[in-house]
């Protein structure tokens, strides 16, 4: 049994129109201007901020699907609420890619790092039976800035991963 992780941020990734989710070079928020790769910023607001995207379920997918959020912040206190809404669409000329609702919505609340810029990992389990090999998964990934989200700084998203088992 092998557990796999694949990145799901790609050419199809698009921030919402709020202006509070955007791509930025990491050295804007980092203290040491060494690693200036791109990250996605989810600003501190009191609203739900989204990043839309899509990916394909791999040929060796069998079970235990999860979404892994790799993130950090300059804050050292407070919680962030991450949501993942998705719909998996499969087949050839069988299902619509333009459906009106999500198939499942999952959430996780994670706490700010003990020291600024430490790597954090949060996971959300998906319903295994919702997914099948070659399905196109349409998703929206949110920072939900309403009541339970208490972190008073931007959340810095480094990666969004699909984890699964091949057994």
């Amino acid at each position, binding site marked *: 049994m092998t557990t796999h992780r694949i990145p799901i941020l790609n050419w199809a990734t698009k921030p919402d129109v709020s202006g509070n989710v955007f791509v930025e070079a990491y050295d804007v928020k980092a203290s040491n201007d060494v690693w200036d790769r791109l990250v996605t910023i989810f600003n*501190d607001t*009191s609203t739900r901020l989204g990043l839309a995207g899509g990916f394909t379920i791999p040929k060796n997918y069998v079970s235990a699907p999860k979404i892994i959020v790799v993130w950090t912040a300059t*804050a050292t*206190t*407070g919680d962030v609420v991450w949501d993942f809404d998705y719909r998996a669409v499969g087949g050839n000329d069988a299902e619509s890619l333009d459906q009106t609702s999500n198939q499942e919505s999952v959430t996780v609340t994670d706490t700010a790092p003990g020291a*600024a810029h430490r790597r954090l990992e949060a996971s959300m389990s998906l319903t295994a039976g919702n997914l099948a090999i070659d399905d196109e998964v349409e998703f929206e990934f949110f920072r939900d800035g309403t009541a339970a989200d208490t972190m*008073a*700084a931007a959340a810095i998203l480094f990666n969004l991963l699909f984890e699964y088992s091949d057994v």
Partner: protein
Amino acid sequence: MPTLSATELTELRQRLARTQATVNWNKTQINAAYQAVEDYIEDHKLEISAAIDTATSPIVLSNPIKKLLVAYYFVQKALRDGAL
């Protein structure tokens, strides 16, 4: 006593957090801090206005000018060395 709106608090939190390498407060704490400043200024704005009128007599600055004057003063004061 006017209450700062969610949008106003969001802007204030973002402005402050962007200036810091590390943020060691949460939303509830910093929202309360901003509201405390709002409450104090509202309680004393007539005194500030009267003090400006005394200083500029015989001319009287308009209220919008007085607001800008005080705002620019606080921005500069925050950037000066030393305690608040």
